[in-house]
């Protein structure tokens, strides 16, 4: 209509959009290479990760063992590569479980509202009171060590983060006019949720899950470090730190420091990629 003078928008619009940050690109590369390493580990590992060569125990880097040998005489590089599998598989399970269940619960709570919503928000509050690690420790003390129990426990602990996010997203989405338009046209609630709402909220939820992946990796590695996660002989980064800790105290830090670095780099990479993704989605929505 008329051009008359709306409220001033300020100068914020003028801010120059920064291009792709180098940090983000590096992290994207890291995620890709770690995943690739985990997939190809059996073929690219130079040694059997459990082959013991006691004569070479705690040896430094050499042509045969580029990352050295641990205290039990096993090749560190091979264990790191195969360890990527267990170290990524656990968090993957946590994230898959928490995402699927969280989205289902969050959507149901937002769509149905009422008693279901308040019951779920109470339950959420309860789960929030148990930090992920504590819940996992509880479950492990009951069911014994292994990978499955802590993965389920952490999945449960991470679930509220996803369900709460989903709930708020679905509530916002539900208020938009297109949803009522579909309802008027006689589409069922399930149909609208699956075909329209879920695809719309998926990017935000998946970005959150990417960040959760990093945290799950941290927690699971911590449990393995305590000797409560994966079984003793399995190559796993957390377990390797546990195995190498005695060597650290005797001045041979390499076999413990390398898995430490792998854990940190992987977690940081997943965090940065997830946060960047969440930022982009948020900007798109604005």
């Amino acid at each position: 209509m008329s051009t008359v003078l709306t409220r001033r928008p300020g100068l914020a619009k003028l801010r120059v959009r920064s291009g792709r940050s180098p940090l983000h690109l590096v992290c994207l590369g890291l995620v890709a290479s770690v995943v690739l390493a985990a997939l190809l580990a059996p073929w690219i590992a130079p040694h059997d990760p459990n082959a013991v060569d006691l004569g070479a125990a705690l040896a430094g880097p050499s042509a045969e063992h580029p990352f050295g040998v641990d205290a039990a005489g096993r090749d560190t590089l091979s264990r790191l590569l195969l360890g990527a599998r267990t170290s990524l598989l656990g968090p993957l399970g946590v994230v898959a479980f928490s995402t699927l269940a969280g989205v289902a619960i969050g959507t149901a709570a937002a769509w149905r509202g009422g008693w279901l919503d308040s019951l779920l928000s109470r339950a959420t509050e309860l789960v929030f009171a148990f930090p992920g690690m504590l819940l996992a420790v509880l479950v492990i003390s009951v069911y014994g060590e292994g990978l499955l129990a802590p993965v389920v426990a952490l999945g449960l602990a991470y679930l509220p983060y996803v369900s709460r996010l989903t709930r708020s997203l679905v509530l916002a989405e539900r208020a938009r006019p297109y949803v009522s338009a579909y309802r008027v046209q006689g589409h069922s609630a399930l149909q609208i949720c699956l075909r329209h709402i879920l695809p719309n909220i998926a990017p935000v939820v998946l970005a959150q899950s990417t960040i959760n992946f990093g945290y799950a990796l941290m927690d699971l590695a911590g449990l393995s470090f305590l000797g409560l996660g994966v079984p003793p002989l399995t190559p796993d980064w957390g377990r390797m730190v546990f195995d190498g800790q005695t060597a650290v105290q005797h001045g041979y830090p390499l076999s413990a420091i390398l898995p430490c670095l792998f854990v940190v780099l992987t977690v940081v990479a997943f965090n940065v990629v997830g946060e960047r993704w969440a930022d982009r989605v948020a900007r798109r929505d604005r």
Partner: protein
Amino acid sequence: MNFVRFAVRRAAEMAATLLVASFVVFGAMYLAPGSPASFLLSGRSASPEALAAVNAQYHLDDPFAVRYLRWLGDMVQGDFGRSLTYRTDVSRLLADRLPTTLLLITMALIVVVTVGLLLGRISAVRGGATDSAVLVATTLAVGTPSFVAAVLLQGLFAVKLGWFPSGGAGGGFLDQVWHLTLPAIALALYLIGMLARVTRSAMLEALAGEHVTVARSRGIPERQVIRRHVLRNSLGTVLTTGGLIVSTLLVCTILVETAFSIGGIGQLLELSTTTKDFPTVQAISLIIVALFMAVNLIVDLLLPLVDPRITLGTRGANA
């Protein structure tokens, strides 16, 4: 709504959640495969009489509800049962180890609050290269699990450089502080990163507020603008992380105390988990959950004092 009524209601809600939490903790142990008696006898083939004696001693024959209520009643009275591993009262075990853990957590908390707030503040106020540097540092910190920090600090400062002891809790206050310095830093690192990021974004949000421009336009010195209008306004957001910080500190002691062989609550939890010492695990879990809720309660009560826009009990709505 007046303050006392709000506090009472909030405390009652907390008690209810805690009750459910205790049920979860107790129920989990009840569901454990195999009878507790066989754990108690640690796999020895026991005579029926011995089994009966153990069952009677630990009231294992009673129905679930009776056992839960008895356990709950004991917990409320401060009787946490008897440790299966140590064959002593759990409360005794806790009392022996609590001072060390409390000192460790206090030290870590001081580090987290001072360094985290400082980093967040200079990152938000200075911007530019300082901001980028702090962002990279906090990104690394947030990605470093405390056990990794523990092992790295141990390898560098204790083994290689020899500045600090590599383990143990030490005796006497100063010696303890010296022993616990590395563990406290390991414990704090992740939370420093988190708090710095929260502080930074809260301050940036406050800095972008029109009231800051207005304060500057009225000739108020920049330091005072930052203190009275930016830092003050981000305090509420920072405060809401209090519960998370304390519970993370508590839980991560399990990793750090194990890494540094410090005989505290965390190490006790790790040991009793490995040995299936249920009463000890139950007690420690419940204490952690209760502390988390207590801190959150305090935060809820403090928040309206920090931010007058938040009327009591509407924290979610106004956040």
